[in-house]
């Protein structure tokens, strides 16, 4: 009996080291951040005072927090829509029936933005969007603008510029995911649609999109989770400025922690990011389990 139980428990023994490491690495920092958010003011004060939910109440009354939350929503939704649009179009293009060598070259080139680090992306785009940069030069040359635009320094343009940069950086993930989805759609469906006299848009809307639907939903949710908490690209490109026009929750958290040294308030903002990300993650997991069944 005991031997049987031990034998049945064997797989769980193998899981233990991994569960222990994961649990320690995840639960300890998570617990500390939540704990910090209930004190005033940790790290700076040797004996911080327990203030309960006061930091949360203060944060809800802070217009800076709501502004950052709004910017985060704009940045996240804008980026994900940009990734989906550009990723879908490019996935269809690189799936086209052209010379295999040309197809390989295009696929390799188009995936490049994904492999650059945020620092490289930020620096390159800063140079491109500089008032004396290539973008302004091109726009002035074709007569679209008369004066150079300060893409990253004008509050009306900075968020749009960030969305362009974020779209450029993030579309390859969608492209690759959709490409694999496109390749798994049976060609018979397109042949049948051809026989029925369907044009390109009919085929896209009635064959491609329904077939890709599970991939689109899952990938979009995953992208949403990643983009929602994106920090380095925003911080290194605009620093949340000009003013606070591109301040998102992740940069606000960093600013509170490492510029203002308000670690409790930073932890409070971080916990809200965690909460919202957890909701997206739940949706993703529900979608995954639905796909499996």
């Amino acid at each position: 009996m005991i031997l049987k139980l031990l034998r049945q428990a064997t797989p769980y023994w193998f899981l233990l080291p991994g569960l222990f490491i994961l649990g320690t690495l995840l639960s300890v920092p998570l617990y500390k951040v939540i704990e910090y958010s209930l004190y005033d003011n940790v790290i700076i004060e040797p004996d911080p005072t327990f203030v309960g939910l006061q930091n949360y109440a203060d944060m809800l009354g802070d217009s800076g927090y709501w502004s950052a939350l709004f910017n985060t929503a704009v940045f996240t939704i804008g980026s994900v829509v940009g990734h989906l649009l550009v990723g879908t179009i490019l996935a269809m293009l690189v799936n086209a029936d052209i010379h295999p060598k040309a197809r390989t070259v295009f696929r390799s080139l188009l995936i490049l933005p994904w492999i650059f680090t945020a620092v490289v992306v930020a620096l390159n785009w800063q140079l491109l969007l500089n008032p004396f940069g290539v973008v302004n030069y091109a726009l002035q040359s074709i007569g679209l603008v008369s004066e150079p635009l300060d893409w990253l320094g004008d509050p009306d343009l900075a968020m749009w510029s960030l969305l362009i940069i974020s779209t450029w950086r993030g579309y390859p993930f969608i492209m690759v995911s959709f490409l694999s989805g496109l390749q798994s759609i049976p060609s018979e469906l397109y042949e049948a649609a051809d026989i029925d006299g369907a044009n390109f848009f009919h085929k896209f809307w009635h064959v491609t999109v329904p077939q890709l639907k599970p991939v689109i939903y899952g990938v979009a949710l995953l992208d949403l989770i990643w983009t929602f908490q994106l920090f380095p690209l925003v911080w290194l490109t605009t620093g949340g400025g000009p003013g606070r026009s591109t301040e998102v929750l992740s940069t606000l958290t960093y600013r509170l922690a490492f510029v203002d040294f308000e670690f409790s308030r930073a932890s409070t903002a971080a916990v809200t990011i965690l909460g919202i990300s957890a909701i997206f993650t739940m949706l993703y997991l529900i979608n995954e389990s639905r796909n499996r069944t």
Partner: protein
Amino acid sequence: MKPKMKGLVASVLLALGSSQAHAATQIEWLQWFAAEQNADFYDTIVEEFEAANPDITVKLVTQPFGKVRESIVTNRAIGVGSDVLGLNMPWTSEFLDMKILEPLDEYLARDDKGFEVDRLVQAPIGKINGSTWMVPLNAFPFVMHVNRGLLQKAGFDKAPENWEELKSMAIAISALEDGTSGIGMPFSSQPPANGPILTFLPLLYTAGGRIVDGIEPDFDNPDVVKTLTFLQELNAAGALAPGAASRTGGVDLEEFIAGRTGFLISPAVHARAIVARNPELEYELVRVPVLNKEAYRVHGWELGMAADSKHKEEAWKFISFLMSGDVNGRMAAAASALPGNLDALGEDSGEDPIFTAQRNILENDESVEELRQAPKTVASWSVMTEEIQSMLAGDQTPQQAASRVQARWLELLN
């Protein structure tokens, strides 16, 4: 015991004994200096110290400037703080609030140190809360770097000496051709978002103004408004390089080195990089143009000791070594700065025109350092940056910008 066994035991004991005898104390030195210069030079300095002090080893920890401040705070919070700290004067107030720094008075009073306290550059060693908290490794004034080539092309034969001349010359240089600008103003929000202290404060000090009254923010005073108005006038006249709100200090320096801006207000320590990177540039270093007071913002690289260091004696020995005449002189020369220990000034260094110009400024003009005692200094830079951005965009007047900074700065303290 057999002879063989005896020999073995003796060898083991000898090995243990010798390892005990050579167990050196390790101290850690966190700084950004080596990141901005030749890292090998710093390794050599450390090796020299270790050779002279075989019982101490020094672990050199080099990080970018923007990272050091947060590392000092977070490392200390988790109990892995360094012993010797590279410091920036504006960090002083917040580090004192967090009790990070060790008072140096007792160490400075000792006779066996390698330098004289009254021969040190004085600004960093001024007492706060009754104690001295840091010593100056080197010192440099904020100056104006001038591209004489662009200046001559614009029809001027000498660098500007006052605000009016600066304005007219900057306008003329901006009008020269596409891509040239009179002067750059780095007011980007990107970290460390310190444009105001790089360019605005040096101008303010030449108007006799200050932003702090004792230890209280005092940003909405008439001198500040006058200086902000001057910036606004430069902007309106097209004298500023476009894109001030996205221009970082680094970009400002690079644009000057590339010969695209006529003037650059920045630390004199940048002179070496400018000359080395663009030897073709017709370059001159002058004092920041004056409104009514020949004054300069003094800056430098400082050294302090961690209050929770377990090796304070060793840490002090190392600081004392770095401050000693010969070593301090070489370190200052490597940074193109003046030594923190004025006894380290070389006789022959007077032949270098860049060095001579710096020395003249340091000797003849009033030095100003008010950020050591300013509260929430680093956070206040961001606030200044944001309000100046808004002013330059035409969204508010200089008076409104000054009032907004004052109100937001006070808010940070509550």
